[in-house]
């Protein structure tokens, strides 16, 4: 038998006694407005360098969707000084690994290197921050690569396709409705001149944050950053328009038909993020709420829906409190054999109703918090993740200090607060539901099904 104490964690919760540990994070600002954040980790002789730009698909306009991501691809195509692909070759020869990623709120470029090679990264990143050479022939090939990426990630993945369309319906005027990879039609009409303007508008030291983690001396990193990035000219930045999502007035429902074998359901409730919340405890309460539903194998979805009632074969909940705009608490899943999408939706709604009606019990709450605490230690194992965390918070405008608040704020969340946010936000008027309606995989059967549907439609009239 296990000692009982592992089951029943003491009821006395944190009472504001936690003194924050002195952070080993150092923040600097260069004269041209570029921010540098350094976090030391001396376990291994390595360094991670990331340049974060405050631009992503939520900065984009209709007709030019996907432009931030295409520009990210073009950033590997050379500058006045370095030819296409040369940057990658130099990093590789230095034993490094590198890549980049684009999201709704940021675009970031990174290298992982043995610590003495940091100057190689800075030299290249500084160069392509201001001197990118956007060549029409290179663009013509690279945009085809991005279209293949879109086919792979979205067109040929029925669940991704459903999510993309769900997202475009859940948001009406918020730029979060834009898929980061871009609509295919927009990719097809994108011009190299569009990219040139996008690059000039957003790629400047005063719109960038340099994050360095690893076995480094912060002062030496600052000196190196001044040497490489210091001479770059700042831009006059036009602030992004607010584009706040209008209030949702009633449930939205939609169906996506695509060749597939397994039905799939997505539900999203409009909820605040740290950047948008009027009451700043609410996002932490939503974070805990998501953990109650899907924070591990002991959480409610797996325990009650997958194992208990066996209505779902998979069921998940997700929420990102670091979004720049008003966000969604997402639920998704596929029904178990013998159940349909309607039954799954009913079960998920019942889970939400339970959160509104009854406070979560103490053991559940503390289990979620225990995992958050332990994860706080585990995440220190990755030098890369530590940089990711700082970069994300900086790029969305919350500041890296937010990560030091995360632990005490999550620990302070009460069962009442979880119930309060459920009652306030997890209501039908804020809900969007999308269903993947599987169509036959076989082309002939699909054609027959379409014909029958058309026939049915005519019969009605």
């Amino acid at each position, binding site marked *: 038998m296990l000692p009982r104490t592992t089951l029943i964690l003491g009821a006395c919760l944190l009472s504001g006694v936690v003194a924050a540990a002195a952070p080993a994070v150092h923040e600097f600002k260069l004269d041209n407005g570029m921010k540098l954040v350094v976090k030391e980790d001396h376990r291994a002789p390595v360094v991670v360098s990331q340049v974060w730009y405050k631009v992503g698909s939520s900065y984009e306009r209709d007709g030019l969707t996907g432009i931030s991501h295409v520009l990210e691809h073009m950033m590997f195509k050379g500058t006045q000084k370095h030819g296409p692909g040369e940057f990658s070759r130099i990093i590789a020869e230095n034993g490094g690994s590198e890549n980049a990623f684009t999201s709704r709120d940021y675009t970031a470029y990174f290298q992982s290197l043995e610590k003495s090679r940091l100057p190689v990264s800075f030299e290249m990143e500084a160069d392509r921050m201001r001197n990118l050479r956007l060549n029409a022939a290179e663009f013509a*090939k690279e945009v085809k690569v991005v279209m293949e990426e879109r086919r792979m990630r979205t067109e040929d993945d029925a669940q991704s396709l459903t999510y993309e369309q769900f997202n475009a319906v859940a948001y009406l005027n918020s730029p979060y409705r834009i898929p980061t990879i871009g609509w295919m039609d927009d990719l097809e009409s994108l011009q190299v001149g569009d990219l040139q303007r996008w690059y000039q508008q957003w790629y400047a030291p005063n719109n960038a944050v340099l994050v360095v983690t690893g076995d480094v001396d912060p002062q030496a990193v600052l000196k190196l950053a001044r040497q490489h990035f210091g001479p770059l000219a700042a831009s006059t930045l036009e602030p992004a328009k607010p584009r706040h999502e209008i209030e949702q007035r009633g449930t939205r429902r939609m169906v996506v038909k695509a060749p597939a074998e397994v039905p799939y359901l997505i539900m999203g409730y409009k909820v605040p993020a740290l950047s948008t919340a009027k009451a700043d405890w609410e996002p932490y309460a939503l974070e805990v709420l998501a953990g109650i539903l899907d924070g591990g194998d002991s959480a409610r979805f797996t325990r009650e829906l997958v194992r208990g009632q066996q209505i779902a074969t998979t069921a998940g909940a997700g929420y990102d409190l670091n979004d720049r705009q008003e966000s969604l608490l997402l639920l998704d899943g596929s029904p178990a054999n013998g159940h349909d999408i309607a039954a799954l939706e009913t079960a998920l709604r019942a889970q939400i109703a339970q959160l509104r009606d009854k406070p979560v019990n103490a053991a559940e709450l503390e289990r979620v918090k225990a995992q958050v605490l332990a994860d706080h230690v585990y995440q220190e194992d990755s030098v890369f993740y530590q940089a990711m965390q700082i970069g994300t918070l900086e790029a969305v405008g919350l500041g890296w200090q937010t990560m030091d608040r995360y632990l005490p704020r999550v620990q302070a969340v009460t069962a009442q607060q979880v119930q309060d946010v459920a009652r306030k936000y997890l209501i039908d008027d804020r809900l969007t539901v999308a269903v993947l309606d599987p169509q036959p995989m076989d082309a002939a059967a699909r054609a027959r099904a379409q014909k029958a549907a058309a026939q049915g439609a005519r019969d009605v009239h």
Partner: protein
Amino acid sequence: MFTDLLKFVRLATALFLLGAGGSAQAMAPIQHWQTTNGARVYFVPAPELPMVDIKVVFNAGSARDGEHPGLAQLTHTLLDKGADGLSADRIAEHLEGVGARLSGDSLRDMATLGLRSLSDPKYLQPALAVFAKVLAKPDFNAADLNRERERMLIALQYAQQQPDAVSEKTFYAALYGTHPYASPPEGTVESLKALDRAALQAFYTRYYVAHNAVVAIVGAVDRAAAEKLAETATAGLASGAPAPVLPAVADLAAAREQRVAHPSTQTHVLLGQPGIRRDDPDYFTLYVGNYVLGGGGLVSRLSDEVREKRGLSYSVYSYFMPMAERGPFELGLQTRNDQAAEALKVLRETLARYVAEGPTAAELEAAQKNITGGQALRIDSNRKILEYLAVIGFYRLPLDYLETFNGKIEAVTLEQVRDAFKRRVQPERMLTVLVGGS
């Protein structure tokens, strides 16, 4: 208890931060011993973070499925769904209540079970007690078996809608024919439906034994504590015997092409042959040589020809996957259906030219510089070191594998790469798999 956990994490993090400012130590040498019942243990102390990782690897992958595809995976899935009378709910509650994370994988060669925990005995000991039960006393309850079987059946359906999964499954089936590696780890509908408790219990009893297990440990524990950890984790395992050696993999007799219709907008193209064993004498030569061909991410011949010059695919690669017996040598890409023929031609020509000519001196040097220069990155976290220990233990690689790695990479010559590729890769005798629309 809970407040203690909070204090512990705070204190531990603060101590870690105070420790900052020193300079990085090289990874400590690997320590190796056996538990009393015969499991082989590999340990590296990592005192910096107050956490510990344990990974137990059994030679119990789908290569042991015999006539019952899915047997290894269903057995593995059920380990934490009920053990020693604890239900799946209780197991998860016990572990997650102390912040521990359970992980696992069921592959062709290996079945693994991992525990990540805080290293303070107050949290580690209860987590370890549950972990040991999961390893040694699975209940295989009928209700759990039926539910997980149903979930695997839906996972099979889901895989059918994903062109990458279809191509991979088709590739392995065609490449390995009657060899145990042909057995799909996720099973087949017929086989899964026929599996019962007796089959799972028998599989478990045969393969989940100490002499068929490797234990890797990395974390903030000393040797004595690590020895106790390994003993406790494996205490309930029968001593047993190692799994028998798998049959050798036969070469493809002739080139083969397999097309599968799929409603995707892209065609997934795979090209391959049986490749190498983990202890293959050509391992380092082929590893370096493949980096030039298609292993170097954006910097490779395949990436140049397929992506950079022609914009045909987002991802294009080649790799040797070394396994207990010969794992695949595989090349792959995905492209719009109407470009599939062109992309396949480029893939084949690039491979044929590389096998005929080998790398240039500059390419070889660049490959060696990348691989040796990246050594520090390969072992910069507990997680990565743990993975190396598991591989070193499972495939019985020398304990100085990591220390001697760079020397072996540097010793590879142009002539050796050319020779090895000519001997080991026959571009005219490849398996080709195309999954997509016409």
